[in-house]
């Protein structure tokens, strides 16, 4: 049983017209679904209370976020990562973030109660939100809240993060937890935000060897990416045997994304999403909660998440984009759109360092597998 979760108030999490984390991206997806005559039936979540968020966040942090979001003047906001270009203080943002957290939490509940086998939450994925620090466009960690609800129900949860940035907030929150495996596949933090996500960050205490990081070389392409999934994620899930999968499906590893340097095409995303569904079927009876995440080239992001929506609902992918949709958004964004849902191939010139990139990524997988081997016996 599949369920979609969405709330129009998700759009309240709007950090300004110039900010890349724009609610427009989901609006584009919903608009495209409509133009494609695909049913869009969703359940609306309830907003979560600030109090509930203290399951994940420091109370002082939640109080401060709520206060500044109401327009109150609090002098030490910058200690909590707020008031920066990435995390500006915008009135009402906390409310939007709490609706989004409510969506993730509802997704977890539907799975726990057996009312759904797969849930797609059309928003959220705030993996950079730390216990007491806003960062990387993220305020409240919706993913952690959902995972916590599942572990409270006695489940083992595998968190898979395919956003191009390291899922540092989720990793930090569950770093010592033996009920949660986190797996983040991202562009290496050598230069890219947040600068963490190295192989040796393996978790500590009871959580040792359950926090997995696959920092990929800039300019990684789809085949190398899929190989990493098959050589690392597959054995990890087979070892951990989770009760459910929580997936952050950020689309910012696309080659056109302005914030990072991986080279996935929409075709690669289709393969990756299908592979993740297979992995859920093989390892946890298909039980999975998907959230959105990063993705800052709206022309690409909207198509990638539409592909996710189709795969999620087991509907064949259309080839063409409807003219009305394309023309409307071409005009609004003032950018040319492709005529097809998928990228045209070849999507970019051959990468000169390709061999080196593939080799580096193989090394990363090997290093990780060697590091966890003694604990995975």
């Amino acid at each position, binding site marked *: 049983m599949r369920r979609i979760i969405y709330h129009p108030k998700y759009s309240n999490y709007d950090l300004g017209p110039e900010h890349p984390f724009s609610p427009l991206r989901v609006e584009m997806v919903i608009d495209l679904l409509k133009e494609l005559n695909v049913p869009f039936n969703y359940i609306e979540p309830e907003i979560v209370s600030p109090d509930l968020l203290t399951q994940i966040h420091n109370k002082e942090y939640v109080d401060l976020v709520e206060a500044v979001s109401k327009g109150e003047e609090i002098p030490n906001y*910058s200690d909590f990562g707020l008031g920066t270009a990435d995390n500006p203080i915008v009135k009402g943002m906390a409310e939007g973030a709490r609706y989004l957290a409510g969506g993730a939490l509802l997704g977890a509940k539907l799975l726990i109660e057996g009312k759904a086998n797969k849930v797609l939450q059309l928003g959220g994925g705030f993996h950079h939100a730390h216990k007491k620090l806003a960062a990387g466009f993220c305020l409240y960690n919706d993913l952690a809240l959902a995972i916590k609800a599942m572990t409270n129900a006695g489940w083992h949860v595998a968190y898979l993060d395919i956003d191009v940035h390291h899922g540092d907030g989720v990793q930090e929150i569950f770093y010592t937890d033996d009920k949660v495996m986190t797996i983040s596949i991202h562009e290496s933090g050598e230069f890219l935000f947040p600068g963490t996500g190295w192989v040796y960050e393996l978790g500590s205490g009871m959580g040792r060897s359950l926090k997995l990081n696959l920092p990929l070389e800039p300019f990684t392409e789809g085949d190398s990416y899929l190989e990493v999934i098959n050589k690392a994620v597959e054995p990890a899930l087979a070892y951990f045997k989770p009760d459910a999968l929580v997936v952050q499906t950020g689309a910012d590893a696309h080659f056109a994304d*302005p914030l*990072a340097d991986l080279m996935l095409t929409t075709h690669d995303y289709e393969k990756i999403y299908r592979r993740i569904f297979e992995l859920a079927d093989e390892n946890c009876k298909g039980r999975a909660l998907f959230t959105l995440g990063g993705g800052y080239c709206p022309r690409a992001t909207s198509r990638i998440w539409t592909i996710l929506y189709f795969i999620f609902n087991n509907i064949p992918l259309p080839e063409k984009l409807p003219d009305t949709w394309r023309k409307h958004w071409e005009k609004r964004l003032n950018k040319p759109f492709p005529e097809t849902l998928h990228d045209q191939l070849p999507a970019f010139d051959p990468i000169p360092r390709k061999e080196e990139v593939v080799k580096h990524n193989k090394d990363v997988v090997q290093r990780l597998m060697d590091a966890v081997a003694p604990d995975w016996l």
Partner: protein
Amino acid sequence: MLIREVMHPDPITISPDTPLCDAYKLMQEKGIRHLPVVENDKLVGIVTDRDLRLATSRLAKTPFDPSDKVKEIMSHPVETTSPSDPVEIATQLMRELKIGCLPVMEDQKLVGIVTSADLLDAMLRLTGVYRPSGRLDLSLSNKPGELARLATILAKRNINIHSILTYPENNNKIRVVLRISTMEIRTLAKELCNSGFEVLWPPHILCVE
């Protein structure tokens, strides 16, 4: 700054069957404290001068004999690093594990060794911070006001600087590595480029929309 810039390439190695006395002699001769143990081209262990001294000490319960083999006392499995790892990452690993050296592996082959002394040298030139941040790498003209000009652009964009590391390059330029609190490093890089800065990373900044 990457490991390949600070490591000792082609380190001296010994085999698991090397007698302890030979290993000790080798360390004395070469003035080194760590010997990677290699068998059939594979790194199988590591032995330090301290390991040797403790193993053979008369104070030990059952001291090893100088003719005993290295494989009896070597540490394994061995923690390693790779040539493309930044030095600060290797440093953290060594501190966490309280070890004094890391063999450097590429293609599962030993290509170098890096010791705490190498990293101390490196850290004199480089310091890091620990807050979520992106990394911006520039080459500045060696003249007054350049850093101020750079900082002003960041301030205008409301970007917090977590650290600035600078070191002189050979070409009379100043290398500047900043850790800054932003995901939008490429749009920033484009603006810097347009303002006449030489941006070394992120590359391909012209593809920013």
